[in-house]
């Protein structure tokens, strides 16, 4: 396959939208990827040289010449153009402010507060060049608050911990609190970021007024568990993790149960669903009414034991079939292999292939989610190396001649 440096014919609900993204890892960069699956023109800006450290983090694939590329990067970074620019140099700053910012509707970034401002890239300078632009700052701790916290580094798990989700996740003490893997704290931030950014874009389209969004990861996490905060404020009650019984869930069954060949998750939170579970394994639901409502009572524990015993001598898919036949929510805890082989995932075409320009091969991963009836999403290219699209973007978007681009490269500005 040859190099593809130009976008496919316009597609998607966001085909008019232009996003410049200069963040790293997932929490910010995954937000424009979602927009790009709906046709947005997304330019990902990295520092020259190594680029985004996410390229080299975690489980790795190999390029034909033996260089490592992160599997997570490979799975996430599609449909965007890759340019490099050293924002810490005056020349880089000027290109960013004068040549790039005026051409975009949205600029998203995730540096520590103050970092790019120090180089002259302030919100004021950006809005002066483009009063209609939406600026989205994603950070660990926010753009204001206690100065001691604002400069702190934050990653997925730190945000899950500090934002209050991790203390609620995992088996009870003395088991450790658990992060939801692989990177739940980053993904939930990216989802909030793209939603809020599109909202601000809608406002800008209607009024001509751009603005600045401040999206700290820990606040996104805290918003997610708002009811737990409300319970603390009113009752001074500190809810604690208890495995798969969610912190505010009051009924059972709602847990994982070990079958012969893996774990199954079963939920029957309401009385009618509980009756269906009882029917499947030949128990009288009336007799176990208290067990359903009060999992910690003696009958509650007895019922839990009965259900565990019933599941334990079956294969997982047998339990799933029996309970689903009655309309009870139940699934094997699916590994990536189980998922790849599942008939429904296959029937829906959830997983698709695309070409990766770093690995120089076709890879398969998760296609666009959700499905749009009139403007279907697509994945039209995988990621490329750092600066892969410099020639095209600096010429067609920023307006530099090929010679000027060569000079910038030589001076290591790009």
């Amino acid at each position, binding site marked *: 396959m040859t190099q593809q440096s130009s976008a496919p014919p316009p597609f998607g*609900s*966001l085909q008019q*939208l232009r996003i410049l993204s200069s963040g790293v890892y997932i929490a910010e960069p995954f937000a424009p990827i979602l*927009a790009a699956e709906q046709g947005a023109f997304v330019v990902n800006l990295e520092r020259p040289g190594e680029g985004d450290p996410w390229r080299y*983090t*975690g*489980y790795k694939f190999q390029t034909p010449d033996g260089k490592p590329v992160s*599997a*997570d*990067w490979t799975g996430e970074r599609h449909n965007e153009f890759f340019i490099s620019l050293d924002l810490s140099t005056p020349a880089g700053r000027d290109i960013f402010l004068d040549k790039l910012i005026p051409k975009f509707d949205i600029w998203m970034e995730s540096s520590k507060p103050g970092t790019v401002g120090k180089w002259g890239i302030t919100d004021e300078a950006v809005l002066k060049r483009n009063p209609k632009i939406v600026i989205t700052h994603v950070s660990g701790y*926010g753009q*204001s608050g*206690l100065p001691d*916290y604002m400069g*702190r580094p934050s990653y997925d*798990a*730190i945000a899950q911990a500090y*934002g*209050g*989700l*991790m203390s*609620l996740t995992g088996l009870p003490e003395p*088991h*450790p*609190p*658990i992060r939801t893997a*692989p990177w739940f704290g980053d993904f939930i931030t990216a989802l909030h970021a793209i939603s*809020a950014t599109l*909202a*601000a874009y*809608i*406002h800008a389209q209607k009024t001509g*007024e751009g603005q600045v*969004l*401040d999206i700290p990861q820990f606040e996104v996490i805290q918003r997610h*568990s708002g009811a737990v*905060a409300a319970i*603390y*404020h009113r009752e001074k009650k500190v809810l604690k993790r208890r495995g798969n019984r*969610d*912190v505010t869930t*009051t009924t059972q069954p*709602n847990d*994982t149960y070990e079958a012969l060949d893996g774990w199954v998750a079963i*939920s029957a*939170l309401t009385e009618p669903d509980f009756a269906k579970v009882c029917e499947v394994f030949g128990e009288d639901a009336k007799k176990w009414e208290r067990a359903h409502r009060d999992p910690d009572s003696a009958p509650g524990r007895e019922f839990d034991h009965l259900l565990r015993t019933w599941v334990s001598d079956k294969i997982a898919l047998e339990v799933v079939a029996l309970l*689903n036949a009655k309309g009870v*929510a139940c699934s094997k805890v*699916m590994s*990536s292999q189980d998922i*790849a082989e599942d*008939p*429904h*995932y296959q029937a829906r075409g959830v*997983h698709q292939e695309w070409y990766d320009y770093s690995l120089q091969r076709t*890879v398969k*991963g*998760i296609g666009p*989610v959700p499905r*749009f009836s009139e403007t279907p999403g697509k994945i039209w290219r995988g990621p490329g190396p750092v600066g892969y699209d410099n020639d095209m973007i600096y010429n067609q978007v920023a307006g530099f001649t090929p010679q000027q681009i060569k000079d910038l490269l030589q001076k290591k500005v790009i």
Partner: protein
Amino acid sequence: MPNRAPSIVPESFGALKGVRVLSTGTHITGPYAAHLAADFGAEVIQVEPPGKGDPWRHEDYTWNGVNVSWVHDRRNAFYITLDLRKPEGRDVFLNNLIPQCDIWVENSKPGTYPAMGITDEAVKAKNPKIVIVHVSPFGQDGDPDYTQRSLSNLVMQAFGGLMYTTGEADQTPVSAPAHGGEKMVALFALWSMLAAYIHAERTGKGQVLDIAEYECINKITSGTMPMFFVDGAVRERAGNKAGAFQPYDTFMAKDGWLFIGAISVPIFRRSLSIVGLDPSDEKWSGAFSNPNSPEGQEFDGALRKWVGERTVADVVRILNENTIPCGPVNDPQQAAEDPHFKARKIHEEWNDDLVGKVKGVRPVPWFSKTPGKVWRGSVAVGHDNDAVLTKVAGLDRAKINGLKSKGVI
């Protein structure tokens, strides 16, 4: 189409001012999306069945019989009742509400609304520009053996592949709490409905979104699927460890848990210095990317010992001074008392019709020009029937009384 009724949101505010969302779902995956839009100023009309309303009102953890998640998350919206199974209810929905709205979001199994005479075609005939958002457990089509199955927050995380990788290696897989799966689905519904709305505003064409709950979960598993498809490698759960670098784990200090996350070699080298080991010693060169090597384990032991001799506050301060990412594992009390939470005023108080004063989490994120706000808490079943049915749906008093007497509202 009838003339567009003006917004009934008092003191209109927010980036989504003027956007009207009709929400007819229950529990979380549909309604939470609409209510997050309401934090940004959208006018949200939530429809419930007459009588007891949404069963979610009274499930889960309650105050005076009212679900606290309901209280916290069902703010900023107008609540009406309408029995869509009755022909009069369906007619009000199609003829009087759908033409007034930009987005209709619902969550149910496929076929539920068509069985009541509410097909996508019927809705589009009344409003060609509307965005229809169907959230369902397994999607609108696919393997027929699956599409009528149920999912819960827990089971969608199991089927979607998030749970398999979460938890300690030798223990049960665990799930994201606080309805983590359902709310993630709602966020997919939110961004995609706004994208489709942008398209509809630009082109005049509405469309239908098919949001399968399990697919939203699978979408946030990062490289887990490519690992399997490309290398046949199954990503396993390993507690908090990242597997390919360290330190990345929970550690027990004298007075509680904290998390240390070093995701690059320079951070690893700084953490060696902190615990008194020599970063220039060749011995440690492989310990960063091989946590299970003897040297990797030796480093882990040294760091655990160092953390165990100190308080959470001291470790968090010292490591952050050295730019080593580290944070306390805040429980609800620690979060409420945290000075940065307070400085950011993340918790605010509002009044709730059903349970009185509530202190919870303000709208997130912060918009510089169009700040969100909490302008009302949750309300009783049918609280806004009169206001919405007269001002938005355009029904007169006699018609509303007739619907009431027939039990349609």
